[in-house]
């Protein structure tokens, strides 16, 4: 594909649309009920998770099945900033709906992403030596280690206790298995969907670039990729770091959601959460950005719709997963984007 002005415009489209939607949602916020907001919020977080995991599993063909661990790091990392950082800044641990407050929140999202990205680097390093299932089990194990470590952290500090604990020890007070129940609900749909837009744009532009093709070449044939000069080691680690960053961002949003009080418990980030994200990526199609996003939307909605049939929900999900793997192993959209398939469909129609 030659880069023409049209191509640039087209590549801007997802960002424009999503920011538009984000702003729209923000404006409608008052009109929406809590429940509708929560669903739109969950959808956004799940899109970010699925699209970011797709960077590792779909682009480079590595098996990462511990995505929830990165999300957890993002959530805790960002809450540490808004809670303990907020105390340092404002002298209390309340939520501050001011410009400074939201600036702090913005910083916390970045910190969440960076903390997770650092962990991504750590997990990416074994990928230099491990292949396939071994890597999968290491990523899963890493996620579990993070969860367990969070469980042995110290109770959250009350403002009255802050003075007694030096600042560098404060981030270790994460609330044990009870979770970090004091996070402010800074997050709104506007924040969430802007993050969704950025994730989609970065994923898409990266994949369409020479770097993206380098990622894909690793998935296709690692030995051939090396032979044409792709530093497969570096690119695999890059994929892990990038994916972890966005998972961290998703965690930051998740940790500051409305009524987040019970959200950021270590248990929320167990391997079941990781599996959910994998299901989205796999159903959407490995390597397909729009596919992963659509699957995230569909499965989030389906989860809500089937909430009263909880017992049967997971049964049908898992059956669906197995059947798709057997009948359509490339996922619903394969490596294609939805518009590719639409274009092909239209061509067939006119013929």
């Amino acid at each position: 594909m030659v880069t023409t002005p049209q191509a640039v415009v087209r590549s801007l489209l997802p960002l424009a649309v999503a920011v538009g939607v984000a702003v729209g949602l923000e404006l409608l916020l008052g009109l929406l009920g809590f429940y509708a907001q929560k669903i739109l919020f969950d959808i956004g977080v799940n899109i970010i998770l699925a699209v970011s995991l797709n960077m590792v599993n779909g682009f480079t063909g590595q098996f990462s099945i511990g995505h929830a661990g990165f999300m957890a790091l993002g959530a805790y990392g960002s809450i540490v900033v808004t809670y303990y950082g907020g105390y340092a800044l404002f002298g209390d641990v309340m939520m501050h709906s001011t410009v400074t407050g939201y600036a702090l929140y913005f910083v916390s999202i970045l910190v969440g992403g960076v903390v997770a990205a650092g962990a991504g680097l750590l997990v990416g390093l074994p990928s230099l030596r491990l292949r396939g299932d071994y890597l999968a089990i290491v990523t899963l194990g890493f996620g579990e280690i993070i969860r367990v470590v969070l469980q042995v952290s110290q109770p959250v500090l009350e403002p009255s206790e802050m003075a007694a604990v030096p600042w560098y020890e404060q981030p270790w007070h994460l609330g044990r298995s009870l979770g970090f129940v004091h996070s402010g609900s800074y997050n709104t749909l506007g924040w969430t969907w802007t993050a969704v837009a950025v994730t989609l744009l970065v994923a898409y532009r990266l994949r369409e670039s020479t770097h993206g093709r380098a990622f894909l070449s690793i998935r296709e044939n690692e030995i051939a990729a090396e032979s044409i000069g792709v530093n497969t080691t570096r690119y695999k680690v890059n994929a892990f770091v990038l994916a972890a960053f966005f998972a961290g961002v998703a965690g930051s949003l998740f940790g500051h959601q409305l009524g987040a009080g019970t959200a950021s418990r270590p248990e929320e980030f167990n391997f079941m959460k990781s599996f959910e994200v994998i299901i989205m990526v796999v159903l959407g199609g490995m390597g397909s950005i729009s596919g992963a996003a659509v699957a995230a939307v569909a499965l989030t909605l389906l989860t809500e719709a089937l909430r009263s049939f909880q017992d049967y929900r997971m049964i049908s999900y898992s059956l669906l997963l197995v059947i798709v793997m057997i009948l359509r192993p490339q996922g619903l959209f394969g490596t294609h984007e939805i518009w590719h398939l639409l274009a092909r469909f239209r061509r067939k129609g006119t013929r």
Partner: protein
Amino acid sequence: MSSFLQFLLKGIAVGSLYALLALGYTMVYGILQFINFAHSDVFMLGAFFSWRLSVLFKINEPSPVAATGVLLGAMALCSLTGFLLERFAYRPLRRAPRLNVLITAIGVSLFIENAGQLVFGKNVVQFPPLLAEHTFEVGGVRVRSVEVIAVVTAFALMVGLHTLVYRTRMGKAMRAVSIDHNIAGLMGIPVDRIISLTFVIGSALAAAAGLLVGITYGQIKQPADSSWVLYGLKAFVAAVIGGIGNVPGAMLGGLLLGLSEQFVAGYLPSELRDAIAFLLLIIILLVRPNGLLGRRVVEKV
């Protein structure tokens, strides 16, 4: 000193159960090169089948004969489960990319858990007292009779498997299939049947592990409880530590893992116990990527 001995004994008890379970993972991995995620669910089913069989036959009192019967029944049912699993979920994917197989395995695992939840309910189940409970004091260390029986049973089964794999015609065929499916077929070995057999045997061992866990802990958690999957994952880790595809390796890895967990839980915060398996895994894989007893495989270009 006595606490050291206590951890040692407990470690062997837990470790032999890990080893029993690890054998199933290592056999399937050796032959099909994938993690049978659903193995932990067959293990879970082993516990629940044992419970149901005990209820069905109204076994309320300890009886070695009844316990053996329940064991055999659970093994048969789990073997059937393993057979069906391979036949209908994995065999259609024999030539599919490995990620697909892995994900199918995860899907099957979720399916069994949630279906099990419907069938067996969502409550913790009190396990029937199939064996008499005695506690001995040996040199200041408490030893439970059921633990001794669990260890002995586990070792007996492992020795049996070892004999099967290394001493019989069938075992020779299994080893041949694990080296190369195509060449094994050219020898006249019915490859698909051998693969089925591998699942059947691995599942029978998992059933035994399930029963022994039930007896040891006296109660079992609901089918979808994440502790089952975690138990299974740790057993897989044990198989990897020992060297995947290697029967003695799985036993060594299982014991090693059981011991490390007990010592970590004994001397450090006990919550860290669940992390130690993965920490051990990462270290071993970085130092010896093919496990303690594994062989190096040269990649062909």
